């Protein structure tokens, strides 16, 4: 997908989404290794930008970009084949290039173009040297290996970005399922995608909500999390919360067994009329109700995660009085603090401080993003409004 427009300038597809602009050093070891392997002065992974060629990763080069027009890198990106200039001063195209001027000018160039995930040519692995050199096919070959690797990295990054978009899209958002209640949640995967999820949806006379944490991190966990979410949702019509969890566990047992995974889960059904919450805690253990008077109750947990021994689940009840807030969070939140159960008190203190589920969730999200959480961080908060609260339904 390379074209020359009517002005004669290069019109490559510019993929700023693949790299942070201006310079996101994604392949530093590659440039260093290539420089050592070839004994070359300068090695860059360069990407076409609108007017410049950006050095996304570089070895021996100080600047972050160079002008595009007519340069070595642009010419190489336009080439179908690797561009090898063994002696710059003997090459009509480049002998007058500013970079070749003077005693320390560029005398050798080798550029191997690479493609983006959709097959368009977007950049070049380029090597410069200050003396002419001969460069045979056996020396081009390692550049091809490096370029194949760059392309597969870019493909992987794009796949992950798309997976993350899909996972985000599966989180509930702007519905107002229940007048008189506010609900908010956030899920921040440690990697692009993760095994945590939260969910909520209207049920007859109230609201169902779930926080789940699939073993592990990354794509494998995310695939299982998508299945768990779907299975639990499919039991939405079960009026009994234990039935819903048992049905889900049965449906998931083969899959979880096959991949030796398990899921901790908090699943609840809340009756809108009086705030009665019936819940199952399957090895989750981190749900607390912060009362309007500032006291807090850590909810009872007795049962095992799904996919372990599946020896049955039991329901417990807690009532949200007006002004009470239920907060359920994944164990990744523990790592934001000292990793002990004392963290529950930290979360309770934040919940007291926060007037709404949204502001509590925002506070924890800021912490997780600031500290670069090592594990997936997920928080779900539900508050029953006070009688004199303005009716504001659900926020996300």
């Amino acid at each position, binding site marked *: 997908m390379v074209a020359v427009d009517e002005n004669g300038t290069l019109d490559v597809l510019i993929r700023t989404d693949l790299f942070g602009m201006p310079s996101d050093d994604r392949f530093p070891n590659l440039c260093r290794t290539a420089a050592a392997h070839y004994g070359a002065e300068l090695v860059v992974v360069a990407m076409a930008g609108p007017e410049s060629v950006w050095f996304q990763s570089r070895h021996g080069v100080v600047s972050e970009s160079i002008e595009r027009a007519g340069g070595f890198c642009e010419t190489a990106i336009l080439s179908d084949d690797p561009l090898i200039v063994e002696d710059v001063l003997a090459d009509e195209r480049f002998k007058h290039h500013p970079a070749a001027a003077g005693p320390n000018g560029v005398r050798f160039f080798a550029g191997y173009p690479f493609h983006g995930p959709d097959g368009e040519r977007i950049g070049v692995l380029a090597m410069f040297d200050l003396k002419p050199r001969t460069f045979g096919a056996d020396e081009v070959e390692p550049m091809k290996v490096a370029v194949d690797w760059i392309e597969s990295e870019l493909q992987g990054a794009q796949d992950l970005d798309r997976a993350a978009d899909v996972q985000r899209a599966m989180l509930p958002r702007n519905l107002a399922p229940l007048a008189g209640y506010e609900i908010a949640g956030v899920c921040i995967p440690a990697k692009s995608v993760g*095994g945590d999820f939260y969910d909520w949806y209207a049920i007859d006379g109230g609201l169902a909500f779930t926080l789940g*944490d699939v*073993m*592990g*991190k990354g794509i494998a966990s995310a695939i299982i999390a998508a299945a768990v979410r779907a299975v639990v949702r499919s039991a939405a019509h079960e009026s009994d919360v234990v039935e819903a969890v048992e049905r889900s566990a049965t449906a998931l047992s083969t899959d979880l067994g096959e991949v*030796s*995974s*398990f899921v*901790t889960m908090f699943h609840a059904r809340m009756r809108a009329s009086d705030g009665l919450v019936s819940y199952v805690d399957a*090895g*989750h*253990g*981190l749900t607390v109700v912060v009362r309007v008077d500032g006291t807090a109750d850590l909810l009872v*947990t*007795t*049962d*095992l*995660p799904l996919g*372990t*021994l599946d*020896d049955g689940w039991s329901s417990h009840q807690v009532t949200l009085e007006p002004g009470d807030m239920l907060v359920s969070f994944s*164990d990744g939140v523990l790592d934001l603090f000292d*990793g*002990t*159960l004392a963290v529950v008190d930290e979360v309770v203190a934040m919940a007291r401080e926060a007037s709404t589920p949204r502001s509590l969730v925002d506070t924890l999200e800021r912490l997780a993003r600031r500290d670069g959480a090592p*594990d997936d961080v997920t928080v779900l908060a539900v508050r029953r409004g006070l009688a004199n609260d303005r009716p504001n339904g659900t926020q996300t």
Partner: protein
Amino acid sequence: MEVNVRDLTGDIAVIQLVGRLNMASAARLREAVTSIVDSGRTRVSIDMSGVDFLDSSGLGAIISALKTTRQAGGDLRIAAPTGQAKLVLQLTNLDRVLTAYDDAETAFNE
């Protein structure tokens, strides 16, 4: 992580774990238990006193090990988890089925 296996009299094996039982090392615990059970010993005791970090993947390996031994007619017991590992077992309620014994050597005596 270090995974040291030694045999006790009878069909009991003790696995001593030292270090972090996480996504990177979980497979080694699974393999160790599978190989113990394949060799005919079905009662496995894990000394967790040296485990300074346990994540969900590590916990998954312990659960797999428990299932593997039970399917072979034996059992798995754990001894002396501390700190963060103990908290993970407690939060997930798995301490209910994986009671922590004081000493891996004697876990099957009780």
